């Protein structure tokens, strides 16, 4: 029960502080005088015009490009095994992943139980 009270108090502190900061932003935004520059509302592209499609995120550019560079061997194995076009290959890998996660969680639980 006490854990729950501490959690509630911490949440109250976090939300209250955030609310104060957010209100400050809104207040300042409403009451200051600035010159609005309309031409700056296009995404910045170092002088090049960018369309909405060009600024959107692709999964390749987002995360996998870095994974493929840093863990090249693992990436190649995963790509060759998962992208076979056969659904069961993907399913086997996902089950394996879940099994490993389950084993790790069980080990952690056992460690705490032994304690």
């Amino acid at each position, binding site marked *: 029960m*006490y854990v729950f009270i501490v959690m509630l108090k911490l949440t109250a502190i*976090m939300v209250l502080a955030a609310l104060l900061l957010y209100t400050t932003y809104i207040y300042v935004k409403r009451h200051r005088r600035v010159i609005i520059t309309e031409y700056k509302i296009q995404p910045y592209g170092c002088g090049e015009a960018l369309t909405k499609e060009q600024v959107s995120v692709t999964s390749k550019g987002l995360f996998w490009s870095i994974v493929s560079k840093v863990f090249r061997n693992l990436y190649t194995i995963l790509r060759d095994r998962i992208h076979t076009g056969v659904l069961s290959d993907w399913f086997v890998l996902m089950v394996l992943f879940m099994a490993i996660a389950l084993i790790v969680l069980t080990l952690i639980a056992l460690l705490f139980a032994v304690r």
Partner: protein
Amino acid sequence: MLYDVLSILINTIVFPGLVFVGIAAWLTQWFYRKLYARMQNRVGPRFIGPRGLLQPLADFLKLLLKEDIVTVVAREKEPILMLSLSIGALIALLSMLPLSPFPLYTENDIILAIYLTLWPPVALILLGFMAPNPYTVIGSSRYMSLIIVCEPIWLMTILTPVVLATRSGATPAYSIFSASLYAWKLWMNPIGAIVLALTLFTAVMVLQCKLMLKPFDIPEAETEIVAGLFTEYSGPKLAYIIMLHDVELVVYALLVSYLLLGGPAPYTLTSLPGALVFIVKYLAVIFLVTWIKASTARLRIEQALMFMLKYVLPLSIIAIILATFAPIP
């Protein structure tokens, strides 16, 4: 009930709330900029206030009162909400330390502390995607990759002294409050000293990474991807981003000072020697972070990830294993 409400209000607004964190962030930024400049044979902030002391405040106010530019594809208010929540989370984290006049602690509160430290990275990653642009997206992607490697190390870094303190008899168990009070006694123990020394190294490395300081400033690499994930941000949003960065520096440095260096120990924080010892320890952490920043060059993303995986992660694993299983006399 009234006591609870008052304690929450004081923790949120005064100490260690927004007022304390704001002043600490301002003074820390000044110290950090001055130190960094001296290490590079520059003068640093100089003109506003005595020895440029008011420069960070002037920078913040200038940005806060500037035009808030929002591009046609960007979100307007969500970035500020995420930044505010992250600063709020860090203030809540400070309320769990013995620094607070009304500390909030319980058994296993380390889980809550870890949860609260996760807010700033998540907010910064989302920030890049909330103002899409090729540079912000690359920046966010790089930061996400760094954080995926850094967060487990950070988790083990703050878990190690807590586990060690709990095994040595600190109560409540697995609490950062009790571990903070007990940390200095761990340095008296040979195994504890080795473990804490290892953890101190991993903590400083992971701080550089989390705060995007050299050699890990890859997500905002200025000469390469404009300003990385902050490219589209200016005016008040940039002011809040800089504020979050400074608050992160303050809170993490305080956390390291308490959990790994024992805070004001062997004195108490309310005594003058205790306050001085605590300030010296805090400034030592800031000095170390600035020193590494000033003396290293930026790594490439894969170099940074491999460095963290090859050298820092194994050390943090060794430290947590030692903390969990080594016999403590």
